[in-house]
């Protein structure tokens, strides 16, 4: 397998960016990524754009339009819509293109415009979550419900407490308060979470990620051509992707993450004990508890205790969502995955200031998306390593 390095990353702040459209967000993220890499637009040989393209402000050919803003044009540009995993899917396709040997340098962009005064926005947001519309969407299905059901089952089976679940929001909002690019930059208390507005029993509004705008970009190349660029490189040890199997096995939303993690660890020749930090898909507080277990950071059923005892904190066993995660950094669907890669790369470079994970050498991302029949539609996981 060809060795692939990430040589440049860039992203906008995530949040309600009313002054930004898709073009302006992409311009900023791509500019930063190219500058970080020490690359010119004409160095890019192939590009992928991850966007769920849900908003009325998002055009067809969004990748072509957004990348042209920074002079990236004429090359193959592929748009990828794969629910909340669209952006990681784009990064993985870029990695595959480099693996093929046909291309030496690639850029992956994720961009999403979800806040808008457009009257159709409300209707479009009700599609979020990617359920099988006729079967589940007509019957009151919505994303917080999925993880609420999984949470109640976990509480019943393992004695996980409501307070342990709320701790995830406390931790991630604290991390977000140290991240100038986060949507929410204010710490919250356990009481704030427990007393916030109920959304889907047992989860409240502070258990849910916000709806955000944002863009993030990643420049990748074969290690053999990396000397063309000046950005501090990070090695990609694994890029795994799986879709759901919809097994009717009551194992709500867990199996796809487990299979993606297994492939990622095997590809990297590493295990969960080697991971210093992880950006995981905490669309809801309970989701993060499930991911600790399915990524192997703790035993099955011990996710609640893992966060309660501080093992997921910056400075704990695995720093989980040092950026603030989806809960605080925000969740602009297509930009979320490349945003996770931004955080892990900057952590491995030692550039994260107050939220820096000391001595970080190996980082992981986990980006899920969509629900169908009690299972996750897509999971992508990367393992990145600091070069010695």
């Amino acid at each position, binding site marked *: 397998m060809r060795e692939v390095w990430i040589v440049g990353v860039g992203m906008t702040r995530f949040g309600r960016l009313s002054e930004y459209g898709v073009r302006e967000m992409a311009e900023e993220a791509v500019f930063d990524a190219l500058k970080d890499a020490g690359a010119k637009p004409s160095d890019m040989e192939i590009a992928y754009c991850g966007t769920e393209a849900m908003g009325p402000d998002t055009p067809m050919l969004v990748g072509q339009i957004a990348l042209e803003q920074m002079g990236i044009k004429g090359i193959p540009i592929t748009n990828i819509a794969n629910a909340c995993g669209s952006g990681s899917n784009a990064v993985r396709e870029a990695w595959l293109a480099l693996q093929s040997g046909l291309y030496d340098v690639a850029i992956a962009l994720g961009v999403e415009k979800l806040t808008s005064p457009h009257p159709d926005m409300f209707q479009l947001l*009700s599609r979020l979550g990617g359920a099988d519309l006729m*079967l589940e969407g007509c*019957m009151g299905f*919505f994303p917080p419900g999925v993880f609420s059901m*999984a949470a109640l*089952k976990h509480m019943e089976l393992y004695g996980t407490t409501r307070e342990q679940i709320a701790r995830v929001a406390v931790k991630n909002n604290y991390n977000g308060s140290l991240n100038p690019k986060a949507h929410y930059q204010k710490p919250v208390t356990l009481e704030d979470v427990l007393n916030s507005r109920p959304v889907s029993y047992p989860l409240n509004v502070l258990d849910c990620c916000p709806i955000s705008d944002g863009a993030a970009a990643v420049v990748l190349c074969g290690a053999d051509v990396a000397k063309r660029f000046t950005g501090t490189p990070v090695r990609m040890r694994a890029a795994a992707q799986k879709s759901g199997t919809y097994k009717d096995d009551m194992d709500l939303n867990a199996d796809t993450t487990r299979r993606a993690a297994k492939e990622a660890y095997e590809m990297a020749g590493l295990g969960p004990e080697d991971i210093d930090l992880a950006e995981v898909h905490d669309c809801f507080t309970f989701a993060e508890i499930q991911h600790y277990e399915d990524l192997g950071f703790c035993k099955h059923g011990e996710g609640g205790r893992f966060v309660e005892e501080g093992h997921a904190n910056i400075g704990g066993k695995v720093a989980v969502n040092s950026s603030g995660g989806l809960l605080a950094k925000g969740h602009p669907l297509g930009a979320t995955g490349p945003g996770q890669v931004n955080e892990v790369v900057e952590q491995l470079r030692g550039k994260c200031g107050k939220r820096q994970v000391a001595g970080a050498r190996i980082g992981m991302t986990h980006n899920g998306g969509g629900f169908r029949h*009690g299972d996750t539609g897509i999971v992508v996981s990367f393992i990145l390593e600091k070069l010695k």
Partner: protein
Amino acid sequence: MNQPTKGVLVDSKFFARRPDGTVEVVGSRCKKCGRVYFPRKRVCVDCLEWNGVEEVPLSKKGKLVSYSISRDPMRGFPIPYAFGYVMLPEGIMLYSLFTDCEPYEEKLKIGMDMEMVIDYLMTDRWENDVICYKFRPAQGGSGSQAA
């Protein structure tokens, strides 16, 4: 509970209407290996014979896998409303709304026996009543009230 027979089915692919007007939820069963599918297919993915399946009504009893109670007013239902997954004996897990079990937090218990009913779901944009399956806690005894 008087179960409606009139009304528009939420999606006709998931149901069959019987001659007496009653409505059943149906899937497909492979004529060769007996595997049951829901939603229905025209081919068993193991046996790969086109139209090698027959229509089969799904079980009307199952066990509650998990549930939640929504307080989101954007979904078109009066809040709060309860929903979750029910596991049927044939190994099919059905997403469903729940009825006849308020207050939900007290009446719903993971693992409890549930039974299917046909119930009013909503009014569509042409003012038709839309009907759909729902589940409620099993009433015990004869179970004759189940659809």
